[in-house]
Structures are given as C-alpha cells and as structure tokens.
C-alpha cells in the first residue's frame, strides 16, 4: 500500500518537474525569437519542412472532410426540408471547429512528430552538446526557428483546410446532390460572421500552433538520448498534443461561442 503511494507521489513530482522544465524551455525559446527576425533564413527553412511538407495531407484531408460534411449534412438536413442551409452547416463546422482542430491534430502527427524525432536524434548524436561547446545556444539556434515556423504555419494550414473543405462540400452538395448553387453560397455568407467565426477560428489555430509546436520541440529536447527514448518521445508528442488541443478547444469554444 505504502509503495503505491510512493509511486504515485513520485509520478506527481515527476509530472510537476516536467511541467516546470517545459515552461522554462518555453521562455528560453521565446527569448530567442527577436534575433530570428535578423536571421530569417533559418525560419524560412523550417517553414518549408513544417508547413509546406504538410500541405499534401492538409489538402487531401480538408477535401475529404468537406465532402463528408456535405454528405452527412445533406442527409440530416433533407429530413427537415432545410437542405438549402448545407453551405452554412459545412462552413460553420469547418471554420469554427474542424479547421483548427483537425489541422492541429494532423500537424501534430506529421510535423510535430518529425520535429521531436529530429531534435531527439540531434540530442542522441551529441550535436546539441557539440553546439553548446562551440558556444552556440542550441535552444536559440535549433528550437526557436522551428517554434516560430510552427506558429506561422498553423493558421495558414487551418485556413487552407477550411477553404478546401468548403469547396469539397460544394462539390458533393451542389454537383452531386443537387443543392442549389446560389443557396449554398448565399446562406453561408449570411450566417458566417467574419468576427465571430473566422477570427475566432484563426485565434484557435494560433493557440494550437503554439501549443503543438511547443510540445513537439520540448519532447525532442527533453528526451532520453537513446533510440528507445526518441521513439517514446515521438509517441508522447502526438498523444499529448492531441489531448491538449482537444481540451483547449473545449475551453476556447466555451469562451468564444458560449453565450450566443
């Protein structure tokens, strides 16, 4: 019995220690950002590997999610004779929720885990140590550019996801299922509000961008520098990112869309 308590206590202490380390690292990363504005090439390089290379999965997923929304939305709305509102349903679902959230999850899986693996491997092969010995701060040189790149890429990817999704819904709803083209767009334009929906969606994706990139970069930097350690860290990145994104999404949604 006592040993269980001990274990629990130890886990709790470890958890807080990690949390503390994570936040200290966050501050260190942020303090390295101003100087990046002078060396933007580093950031551009990372936006390529984190953003551009995620485009394919985002485009394809966005299209399919939009198409499914169109299909399912139509099936449900047609019972109420309200299939003209399909545009609204598709657009609001995407812009408010699915765009930011699904993009964040996909990003964590594709780009986040890649970041963790890369940084973890650099740690395991002593590249980070070597940089330290060459008087180069590995946090500023390696982590900050990747963090900034994630922050920049996420809202762009989420916007692309939503836009492509709306087009996907259009394809299915209008071309396949016969919803009136004019109604699709006009209903949507009527009900989707720039401030309430689009801005809030962008804010969500910015928050998710910070959180997912932070977790990815931290797990890599903090991992045990062995092959097993790196693999565990990559798994943790994806799992923790997913949990935090979904949890934050609830809080943000409640804050933003709580009282209509």
């Amino acid at each position, binding site marked *: 019995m006592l040993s269980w308590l001990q274990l629990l206590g130890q886990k709790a202490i470890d958890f807080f220690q990690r949390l503390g380390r994570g936040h200290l690292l966050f501050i260190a990363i942020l303090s390295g950002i101003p100087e990046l504005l002078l060396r933007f090439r580093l950031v551009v390089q990372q936006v390529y590997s984190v953003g551009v290379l995620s485009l394919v999965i985002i485009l394809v997923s966005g299209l399919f999610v939009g198409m499914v929304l169109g299909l399912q939305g139509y099936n449900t709305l047609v019972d109420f004779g309200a299939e003209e509102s399909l545009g609204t349903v598709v657009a609001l679902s995407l812009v408010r929720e699915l765009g930011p959230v699904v993009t964040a999850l996909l990003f964590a899986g594709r780009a986040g885990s890649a970041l963790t693996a890369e940084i973890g*491997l*650099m740690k395991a*092969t*002593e*590249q980070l*140590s*070597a*940089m*330290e*010995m*060459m*008087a*180069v*701060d590995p946090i500023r*040189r390696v982590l900050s550019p990747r963090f900034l790149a994630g922050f920049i890429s996420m809202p762009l990817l989420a916007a692309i996801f939503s836009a492509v999704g709306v087009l996907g819904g259009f394809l299915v709803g209008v071309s396949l299922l016969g919803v009136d083209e004019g109604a699709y767009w006009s209903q949507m334009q009527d009900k989707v509000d720039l401030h309430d929906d689009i801005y809030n969606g962008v804010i969500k994706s910015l928050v998710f961008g910070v959180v997912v990139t932070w977790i990815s970069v931290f797990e890599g930097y903090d991992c045990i520098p062995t092959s097993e350690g790196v693999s565990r860290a990559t798994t943790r990145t994806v799992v923790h990112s997913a949990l935090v994104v979904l949890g934050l999404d609830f809080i943000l949604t409640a804050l933003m869309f709580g009282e209509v």
Partner: protein
Amino acid sequence: MPDSQSLVKIRDLHFVRGSRKIFDGIDLDIQRGKITAIMGPSGTGKTTLLRLIGGQLKPARGSIEVEGQHVENMGRSELFQIRKRMGMLFQNGALLTDINVFDNVAFPIREHTDLPEQLIRTLVLMKLEAVGLRGARNLMPSELSGGMARRVALARAIALDPMMLMYDEPFTGQDPISLGVVVRLISSLNDALGLSSIVVSHDIHETAAIADYIYLLSGGKVVAHGSADELAQSNSEWAKQFMNGEPDGPVPFHYPADDLHVDLLQKGLD
C-alpha cells in the same frame, strides 16, 4: 604536478550523478602546450570530466580554473565567451547532419564572426587541408566513414583557433590506418598550433605514444599520474593493472555478487 604553467587547474573536484559518486576529490593540472591524457577503465567518468571543464556540468564541490577563471561559477554568457577558445572533439564527431562538410567546419566561424564569405572559404579550406579532407568538402556527413567524420569534426574544432582542444575517446573503434592518422594529427596539431590538448582515452598504446603526461582515474580518484615512462615503471597496483591490461586487480573481474556456492544451491529460488 602543480605548475604555474597550468592552463587548467582542477582542485578537490566532487561530482555526483544520482547516488553514484563520479568524482571524489580530484586534483588535476593541464599544462600549456602539452598533451595530457586522462585514462581509466570504462565508466569512470572521463567524458564527464571534459564536460565539467567546458562548463556543461557543475561540480558538487571543488574548483575548475581555466586560464585563471573559475568555470564552475560562470554565468551563461561568460561560459559562451570561454568556450569559443576551447575546441572539443566528440567520440562520434557530432557533425550537424543537415549540412555538408564545408558548412560544418564553417559553422563556428559564421556563428561567431562577421567575416566575409571569401575569407571564410579560405579558412575552411585550410582547416580541411590540415586534416587531409579538403577534397571532401561537399560531401554530407552521412556519406563519410567514421574516421573521416572525426577528422572533419577535428577541423571544425580548430576552426576558431582555440587555445585548448579536448578529445573524447579519439582512438576508440578505429582501424589501424585511421588510428595512425588520428595519432599523427593530434600530436602535430598540438605542436604546430601551440595548443594544449586533453585526451580522454583508454587506449594505452596510442595514448602513451603521444601523451606528455598521464592521469589515471579509477573509483572517482586519481590513482596514478606521471609521464608514460614513469607509469610503466610504477609500483602502484592500479598503474600495473591498467598499463599491462590485467583482467583482475584493483579493478575486479567479478561484478559484486554472493558466494558462488550459495548461488548454485539456491535451486532457482531467486
């Protein structure tokens, strides 16, 4: 051998990792212009010592002076200043894998100076020439053999003309030819560039060939020190076991365990 010529002075160094005492009161002197070797059985924390000198780790107790400055008390920016004058060669080279050989050697120069690219090019080519790899400058680290990677790492370590070079197990796992190359490079670079070198190793033959002074570590203490000849003739049990490669002695063959009799008669009741 305390001396005013010491570049690095370590006094009463204590370092603990977890519950293990890695260093239990060590005194060391690294002399200018000489090659000092730090040897001992695997796991005695020789690499840890290099990290302590470089300030990557902080000692539990004791002082580490590099050129008169106390490394163990230094803040971040001071550490970065002094590290620019230290070069370190890691066991597997630790080259940055996403850039080619040329860029790896140029890395410290680009990070710490504002020199024009033309000048950087000249410097890099010269450093690569010193290690014999000028022709390999466009290769990626993944295309290099282990020995070549280490040589590139060496070129990178001398890129900023440091005052001191630290080698972490440079002889381990090398074929005879690469071994010869490394040995020659360490000693010729030390003399040509007026460096002070610290070589951490457990290869007696190669180390004895080039080291001016050797420290033997075991169990967290300095168990013997002197020139290669002095150690070879030493009466110390430690020195004898290590220099002659005897399997049993002060460093025991058997990992601590119960009496054999007792173990065998346990009938699997472990």
